């Protein structure tokens, strides 16, 4: 079985309260549509960096929960981050990995070891407090509250369908404005400072 990414995001959005959510790549637009919030930290352009960006927020503000919406191709580009996150052991840290088996933004080419690799097993072996794999929405929905109550870090590997969200280069007029992250993080910091 596989899930649609957006059905999974709906499950997460229903539980979202004051968490800082780091979203990257193809989850950015869908997450922002479902759960617009002053604490959405949205990023493109440095595959693999979202989880450690979230780790920094979690270490700097251990009183807050941090969720990271990551992709399998992205995670593979900085796979050592699993050890870094496990070592730092942020307690309120949910690492969501969408495992669709392809590099979606570049046209759906298969990732290395597609169909063989398990990110939940890798996270467990790296030292995450808990890691589980899900391939249907109802089971994930039923397990999520329990996983959110675990002292983290926690990773959930979600077997999802490729959505066909290929990357289209923005027009030159859009390229002239500051990149998404540069526009996005100062308001997030301001919101956290007021907490």
């Amino acid at each position, binding site marked *: 079985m596989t899930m649609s990414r957006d059905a999974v995001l709906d499950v997460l959005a229903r539980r979202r309260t004051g968490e*800082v959510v780091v979203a990257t790549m193809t989850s950015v637009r869908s997450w922002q549509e479902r759960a617009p919030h002053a604490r959405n*930290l949205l*990023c493109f*352009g*440095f595959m*693999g*960096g*979202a*989880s*450690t*960006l*979230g*780790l*920094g*927020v*979690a*270490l*700097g*503000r251990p009183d807050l929960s941090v969720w990271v919406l990551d992709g399998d191709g992205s995670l593979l580009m*900085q796979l*050592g*981050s699993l*050890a*870094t996150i496990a*070592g*730092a052991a942020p307690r309120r840290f949910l690492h969501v990995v969408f495992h669709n088996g392809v590099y979606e933004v570049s046209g759906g080419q298969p990732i290395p070891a597609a169909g063989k690799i398990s990110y939940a097993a890798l996270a467990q072996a790296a030292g995450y407090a808990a890691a589980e794999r899900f391939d249907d929405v109802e089971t994930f929905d039923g397990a999520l509250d329990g996983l959110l109550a675990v002292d983290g870090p926690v990773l959930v590997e979600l077997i999802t369908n490729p959505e066909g969200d290929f990357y289209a280069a923005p027009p030159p007029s859009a390229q002239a404005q*500051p*990149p998404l*992250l*540069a526009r996005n*993080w100062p308001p*997030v*910091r301001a919101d*956290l*400072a007021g907490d």
Partner: protein
Amino acid sequence: MPIPERIPADRLLDAIHGAGVEFVVAVPDTHQRTLLEAIEADAGIQVVRAATEDEGVAICAGLIVAGRRPLLQIQHAGLYACVNNLRGIGLDGAFPIVMLVGLLGRDPARAPRENFGSMVRLAEPLLDALTIPYHLLETTVDLPQLAQAYGEAEVCGGPVAVLLGEESGPPQGVPA
């Protein structure tokens, strides 16, 4: 060119405290091992161990979002390794990240860009290419540059590198 010296680890640590640093995000560097030992022993600074320098850049950015002041402590080889996150997070994201970069193997009789080895020789040209400002710590007289780098990073809205020209020395009073 001033004669480079091994700046004692405790003097470097004082400069780090003076800059208001709360977190040191580190990938180990032989060149800075005495400093890293001093930082690890300091209860006032939280050390975050990263597996790669790319991760270190991202962790520093997250700490800045959280309102903290980090220092990224890496070796020149790590500078080469983290170019994509320096570009995508540091430059494009406009994060005021300060990096302390060890020039391991540098011939102290020569300016870094006149060294034979590519690791040392290409560090400054790489930073020039990335449009990242940098400063060279050669003696204790240069230590205020570390705190100044934070102000510079805020003003220019991006990373600033501080290059450690000679290997960090043992703390004062401790034999080398």
